[in-house]
């Protein structure tokens, strides 16, 4: 990406930006495939059918049209963070075009499908991709601005009316997030044979959403909202929770998506727990899924399932607490080697613990895990006389089965987030971050590093155990195969992809890693391959993740919190220092002493 910078002379930046926007507009209007694909029209009338209803633009072409219009506006109207905005739109549009091009060409039989065949022309994908490239080049030719820092204090100064305004802004923002999540979940349908185009539509939608969010980020809007919600914290938390609870009432409220969302919730809670260990304390844990497993098996044994040998049936909240406590105790055991072992050796120790757990669970140790038969038939959670796997009617709306699990998971994830956020800003959280940055220095500053590290493992494991209890009930069975090494790697990947040490990062990472396979069923065989390669590429090109922690970002990517390359900032500092020195030479000692 750095090579693209300065490829164009600055004078051409604006014409190229305008060109890119125009190309997007044109591409949206062009047909995208020269003939009807075998599985039916490519969604949203990408084939020549389009001309039957020329003014109906839907789906990704509508997104591209929107991008084109926004790019033209951003080019000619002074926009904060212009180069960043254009760059985001460029990559988003490029993604939409390339994904659709690959899919149409792959499914429809070759390059002819996206150029010309049978006397028809369909240059949409190519024009769109060219537009994206033009935009990226143009953004590279402009000076990269700082991400604007919009003021947030003005609302407080305006008194009660200002607060109302701030609340309104936050409400709109969170509603938009809810809408985006719902759209993302439903984009392209479920995936699999019945929805042949689910994969490409979903990926193209991700391109659109990514471009849009990236542009907003470049303008400083997302950062502003984040700081604003920080300022009105209680209100934001309530609204966010309400939004999460509102998801079943949107288009995404089908039984299928509620199930998926609940599963994502379980993994998100686990990922946040892992984030304490890896993101905050900087201890790489390669066997983390074992704690999820311990929680699941404990809950399974206490659930009254026929296969459980403990024969002790307790209500779910108690079982969940016991699961969490047991997992936490194991966390302390696994964490104890941290007293002597560091770095990648520690990673290997945790891997060994994870494998020991998997092997012993597979061998049905103490008749507690059911071995290869697993523990089947775990009854659904029952609280307030209502089994959680039944549909309910709420506020006159019929909600599908599984929605209660979703609500429960939302509460748990919210609780886990609260724990994480408070820990991060607490004394122990700062100790963890200090250990992550430099363990010896942290110890020299008086931090009891051993205790802090074991505590990190315990906290993470407790959260995972809690998630595991829900996991077992929701799934209805607990099997050693759900807790393999690969699952640990997946969780780790979720944390890294999202961004180490941040809450939205862990949630986003878990969502992506568990929604994508659902959407891309037809490529299910390639899931792990892509996953492995993705790990390699993330580490190579964006090791700080999608939502980087401010400190992490500086460390991993060489950028400051404002998104400026660190080298530049350092050069700037050196230059300023030199200037200062020169000034001192010119005006000898007098003023300096006066300054003191």
């Amino acid at each position, binding site marked *: 990406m750095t090579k693209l910078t300065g490829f164009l002379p600055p004078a051409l930046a604006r014409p190229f930006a305008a060109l890119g926007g125009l190309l997007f507009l044109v591409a949206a209007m062009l047909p995208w495939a020269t003939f009807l694909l075998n599985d039916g029209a490519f969604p949203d009338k990408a084939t020549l059918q389009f001309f039957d209803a020329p003014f109906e633009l839907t789906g990704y072409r509508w997104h591209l049209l929107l991008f084109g219009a926004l790019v033209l506006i951003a080019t000619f109207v002074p926009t904060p963070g212009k180069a960043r905005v254009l760059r985001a739109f460029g990559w988003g549009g490029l993604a939409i075009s390339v994904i659709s091009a690959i899919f149409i060409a792959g499914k429809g039989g070759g390059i002819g499908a996206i150029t010309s065949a049978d006397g028809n022309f369909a240059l949409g994908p190519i024009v769109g991709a060219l537009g994206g490239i033009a935009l990226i080049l143009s953004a590279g030719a402009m000076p990269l601005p700082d991400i604007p820092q919009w003021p947030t204090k003005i609302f407080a100064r305006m008194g009660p009316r200002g607060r109302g305004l701030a609340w309104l802004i936050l409400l709109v923002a969170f509603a938009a997030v809810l809408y985006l999540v719902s759209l993302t979940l439903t984009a392209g349908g479920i995936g699999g044979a019945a929805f042949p185009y689910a994969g490409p539509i979903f990926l193209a939608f991700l391109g659109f959403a990514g471009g849009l969010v990236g542009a907003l980020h470049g303008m400083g809007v997302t950062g502003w909202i984040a700081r604003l919600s920080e300022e009105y914290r209680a209100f934001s938390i309530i609204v966010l929770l309400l939004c999460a609870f509102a998801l079943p009432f949107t288009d995404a409220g089908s039984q299928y998506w509620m199930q998926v969302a609940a599963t994502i919730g379980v993994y998100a809670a686990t990922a946040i727990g892992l984030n304490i260990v890896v993101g905050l304390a*900087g201890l*790489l844990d*390669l066997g983390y899924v074992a704690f999820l497993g311990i929680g699941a098996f404990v809950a399974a044994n206490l659930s009254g399932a026929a296969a459980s040998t403990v024969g002790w049936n307790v209500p779910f909240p108690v079982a969940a607490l016991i699961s969490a406590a047991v997992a936490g105790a194991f966390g302390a055991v696994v964490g104890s*080697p941290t007293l*002597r*072992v*560091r*770095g*990648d*050796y520690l*990673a*290997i*120790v945790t*891997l*060994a*613990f994870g*494998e*020991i757990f998997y*092997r*012993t669970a597979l*061998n049905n140790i103490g008749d507690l895990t059911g071995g290869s038969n697993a523990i089947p038939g775990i009854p659904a959670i029952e609280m307030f006389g209502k089994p959680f796997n039944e549909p309910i009617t709420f506020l006159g709306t019929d909600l599908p089965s599984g929605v209660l699990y979703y609500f429960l998971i939302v509460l748990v994830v919210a609780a886990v987030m609260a724990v994480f956020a408070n820990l991060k800003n607490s004394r122990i959280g700062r100790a963890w971050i200090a250990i992550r940055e430099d363990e010896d220095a942290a110890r020299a500053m008086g931090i009891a590093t051993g205790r802090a590290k074991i505590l990190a493992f315990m906290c993470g494991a407790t959260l995972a155990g809690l998630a595991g209890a829900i996991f077992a009930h929701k799934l209805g069975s607990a099997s050693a195969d759900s807790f393999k*090494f*690969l699952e640990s*790697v997946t969780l*780790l990947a979720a944390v*890294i992809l999202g961004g180490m040490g941040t809450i939205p990062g862990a949630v986003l990472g878990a969502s992506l890693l568990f929604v994508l396979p659902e959407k891309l069923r037809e490529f299910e*065989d*390639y899931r*792990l*391959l892509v*996953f*492995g*390669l*993705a*790990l*390699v590429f993330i*580490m*190579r090109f964006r*090791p700080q993740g999608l939502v980087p922690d401010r400190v992490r970002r500086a*460390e*991993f990517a060489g950028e400051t919190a404002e998104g400026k390359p660190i080298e530049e900032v350092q050069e700037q500092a050196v230059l300023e220092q030199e200037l200062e020195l020169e000034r001192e030479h010119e005006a000898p000692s007098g003023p300096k002493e006066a300054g003191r």
Partner: protein
Amino acid sequence: MGTLLQQIANGIVLGATIGLIALGYTMVYGIIQLINFAHGEVFMVGAFGGLAVYRWVLPAAWQEMWYVALPLMLLGGVIVAVVIAVLMERFAYRPLRNAPRLAPLITALGVSVALQEAVRLWFPDADAAQPFPRVFVDAEINLGPVEISASELLLIVVSIGLSVLLQTYVSQSRMGRAMRATSQDRDTARLMGVNPDRVIVLTFILGAALAGVAGVLYGSNITNIDNSIGFQNGIFAFTAAVLGGIGSLRGAVIGAFIIGLIKSLGGQYLPGGTQYDYVWIFVVLILVLVFRPQGLFGDVERVRA
């Protein structure tokens, strides 16, 4: 008594396989302090490379003549393993050489998963275990109460022979001296006219070649392979390398034999039987890392724990 001796023999055979892989681990770690998690997959890919040569390159008449078939299969396995390892070093690890230490480890995990999946997807029928021909002479040798097959004997001989050869190469040759210099201090080595990039690539090549040999011999000994053999044996080998003192060639081989013995004897005599033999190895791994991270032969100050 007979069982004990037989299990010891089994352990030594396993140790011979692990030793060849462990050498690659220990060399790479010694030079760039990277736990090359994907090294086990290099072994696996080598085994599949040998199988590919047998299936699609060798004419039917040559398949019967082990003195033709085996060297060619070894060559095939080694070439495939080396190519994969060099690509891996060049495109996955080299760009991360100055990154924080966890980044290359995570990359290595990714490479490992990707290689396993690539073999499963693209090697014909490799989504199930594949039969591997017993290329070498199919004979049993009786040594009193112990019975050992010719292939197993070959594995032991080749393993020890190659280890000695490697040890000699590293301690005697000019390039070996460059390797040792690079592992001690890369920057100073560069000042002394050593090209660290070349040395590192050579290290990967040597390790991969040994893993390739191990893969082919392992296949012809066990007579069936699948895409997960790399992960298992890779973990064993890593444990062996740590046990012997990571960075030490002699330690890796001795550690491998110890691990082999622990697995076979633990499976025989410890509670739980063979189902738990893996567990003992991981327990040993944890104990060694916690209580003697420098291993049996490692230098104390070289350990970056």
